[in-house]
């Protein structure tokens, strides 16, 4: 069976990863000289607590090629086919690190490294889809073909209350069109061509939630949906309630942004990701 590997910016919960047999490679979040493995040494709650009290702004770093090489080597003992789906290379050098890791491994095991062109919930849905297909017996070639075709069908809509974290972290991408506005707005961003893209400017949180729900309704055939928050579980619950009529609960995954993602989006994001029917 193909073994699926991803990185921690997919925001997949440890339980779900275990259930689906997905290996998660952690990135790093750093507060000054303190380094933490994403969702391993530091949870989302702990991260945001530290964010409040620390006087250094957190930075993030990618996993090393050596680490990927180690993971691939270990998995190669259980399988002959591995698929690694990473965060978009426009957000992080992790795709390159995974490729280098693959090059460092001496094994007959086939390894396919795919740039998800996405992140967070959108990346998560692709990874879940891959793992499920692997479980139903798809081989690496079939999986590669299907996932590559699924990539343009994965969407994310993330509502922010500020773009300052994204701006400081240098990942604002085309969403820079929303910077510098003199009105207070709640921007909603998506990911297009692997980088942040401006979608809407809502006037307040309530409007933003409406927008997120409408976004989901805008898709005719949905495979699965993922909803995430950072520090606002009540808002997540509200969103979940409103989506109940649109997508059945068993195809709605709930999660939190990982600390590494959190360092770039801030404490008040709310996101919905949609994977269209494949």
């Amino acid at each position, binding site marked *: 069976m193909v073994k699926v590997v991803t990185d921690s910016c997919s925001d997949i919960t440890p339980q779900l990863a275990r259930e689906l047999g997905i290996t998660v490679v952690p990135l790093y979040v750093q507060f000054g000289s303190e380094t933490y493995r994403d969702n391993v040494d530091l949870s989302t709650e702990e991260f945001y607590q530290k964010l409040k009290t620390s006087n250094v702004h957190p930075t993030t770093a990618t996993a090393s090629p050596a680490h990927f090489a180690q993971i691939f080597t270990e998995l190669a003992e259980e399988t002959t086919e591995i698929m690694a789906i990473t965060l978009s290379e426009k957000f992080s050098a992790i795709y390159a690190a995974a490729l*280098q890791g693959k090059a460092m491994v001496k094994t007959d095991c086939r390894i396919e490294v795919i740039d998800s062109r996405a992140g967070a919930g959108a990346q998560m849905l692709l990874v879940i889809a891959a793992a499920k297909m692997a479980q139903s017996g798809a081989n690496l070639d079939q999986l590669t073909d299907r996932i590559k075709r699924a990539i343009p069908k994965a969407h994310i809509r993330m509502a922010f209350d500020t773009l300052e974290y994204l701006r400081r972290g*240098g990942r604002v991408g085309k969403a820079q069109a929303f910077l510098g506005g003199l009105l207070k707005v709640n921007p909603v961003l998506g990911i297009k061509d692997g980088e942040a893209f401006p979608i809407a400017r809502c006037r307040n949180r309530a409007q933003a939630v409406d927008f997120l729900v409408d976004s989901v309704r805008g898709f005719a055939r949905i495979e699965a949906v993922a909803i995430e928050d950072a520090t606002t579980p009540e808002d997540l619950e509200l969103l979940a309630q409103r989506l109940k009529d649109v997508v059945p609960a068993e195809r709605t995954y709930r999660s939190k942004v990982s600390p590494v993602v959190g360092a770039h989006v801030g404490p008040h994001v709310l996101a919905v990701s949609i994977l269209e029917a494949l």
Partner: protein
Amino acid sequence: MKTDLADGKTLKEMFASGTAWLEKSAPDINAINVFPVPDGDTGTNMLLTMQFALQEVKSSSDSHASSVAKSLAHGALMGARGNSGVILSQFFRGLAKGLEGKANFDGADFARALAGAAQTAYKGVASPVEGTILTVLKDASKAAKEAAKDNHALIAIVAAAAKSAEESVARTPGLLPALRDAGVVDAGGQGLYILLDGALQFLKGESHKIQYRRPRLVVAEKELIPRAAQRLTHLEMPHGYCTNFVLEGQNLDSARIDKGLKKRGQSLIVTGDDTLVRVHIHSFKPGEVLQYAMKLGKLHEIAINNMDDQYADFIKMQRERMPQVDIAVVTVASGEGFFELLNSLGNIIIIPGGQTMNPSVHELLQAVESAPSDNIILLPNNKNIVSAAGQVRSLTTKKLKVIPTRNIPQGIAAFLAFGYDLNLEQNARAMEKAIGRVKAIEVTRAIRTTRLDGLEIKKGQFIAILNDEDFISRADKAEEAIFEALGKAGADKAAIITIYYGMETKGAEAQQMAKGIRDQYNAEVEVIQGGQPHYHYVISLE
């Protein structure tokens, strides 16, 4: 205190690592290169300069610090391109002077050398400008000097210099208006910071990580409106040729050459010694510049770039960094504050409406025709010109959608609803939907005693009009008129109340008004200076 001494090899490796990091960052640095000329090649130029410098020491196994420094300086001089490249070569010249005679050096030596490098760099530029690489270098060397008081370890000094450089780059838009207007930090300063940061990574033993690190530029201290492409397209003037060469001769006098070339162009830098002089100039007549120099000796490393071509490439590069949208938005507005607000929200063409907000069909048509797209959305912001706007449609071959905005708050709401991922039809629909959610109250003073809807209004009283047609309150004081109007307009149901105060209203009064409104209503209240004529207040309810 005892610290390890570094040698020439370390110096070489530091700058090799810095160059590797610069190579990764060069495209991003090019993209923010707006000063002194938006030719988009600062990153490339600094990289070329560094590559020449390193080439000079590449094959040598020289470990004598002073010797390596001199070779770096010589290589940089020979390879220097563009403003930043030449200043960088000055940096190395100063560094070499500071390390003169030393086989080994520690942090304190390096700090001293940095200070000398900063001085040399400043001296090399005829009219030094703050907010550029010079400022960053100055700040970095100051920090290095400060750090050297407590610690002589090289890594500590370079770390202090790099950190200070980073903070300095973030501040550059505050020092140089051209940067702030274009919404970027200084490219040359950025390059210098990258160089120092790369050197630091070597000293930390992490330079091998550079190859798979994501290049990241320093972000401005304050959020800036990203408008390089928008703003710079208005500065369409011929730029000339960026002319660079090294003059080799005898008894060369840099000051005299500087004088001789001053009138032939801009951004002139002449630097060197009596046998080797580096020249950089932006000139419309590069031939004359070369001819002049050829009389004084031999020319090497001649590089001439057409800056108009570079500028065109730069604009193209800027456009690609913003979401591609083939829809232009045209609107009518009055008030400096509104102009600023609208421009801060995106690319928009504003027709000044003057006192009456009533531009002619001709003015509307002109704006539509000059817009950089064949798909236009027009926001008239005045119910009286919605029909004139409709007439424009028959006068142009462009695809024009008129969103029937009756006032500026509706125009703003419509513009906010603009979707970068929507086509013309979809945008028109989204914007029309958005204006339905906005109510506007306009407050002005009666210019004569009159009767409205059966009510007597005295000259000078404040009157409030809802949605441009319903007169809903009048009072001697603006506050009274406004609170009555808010009540009648259903402000208790509004989520957001925005107060735009006009030319004749003081900010303090508007803030007071806002405070009163916040006390009474649940809505979020925002105060913005609209600067509009005629209406003392325009209040939007959403």
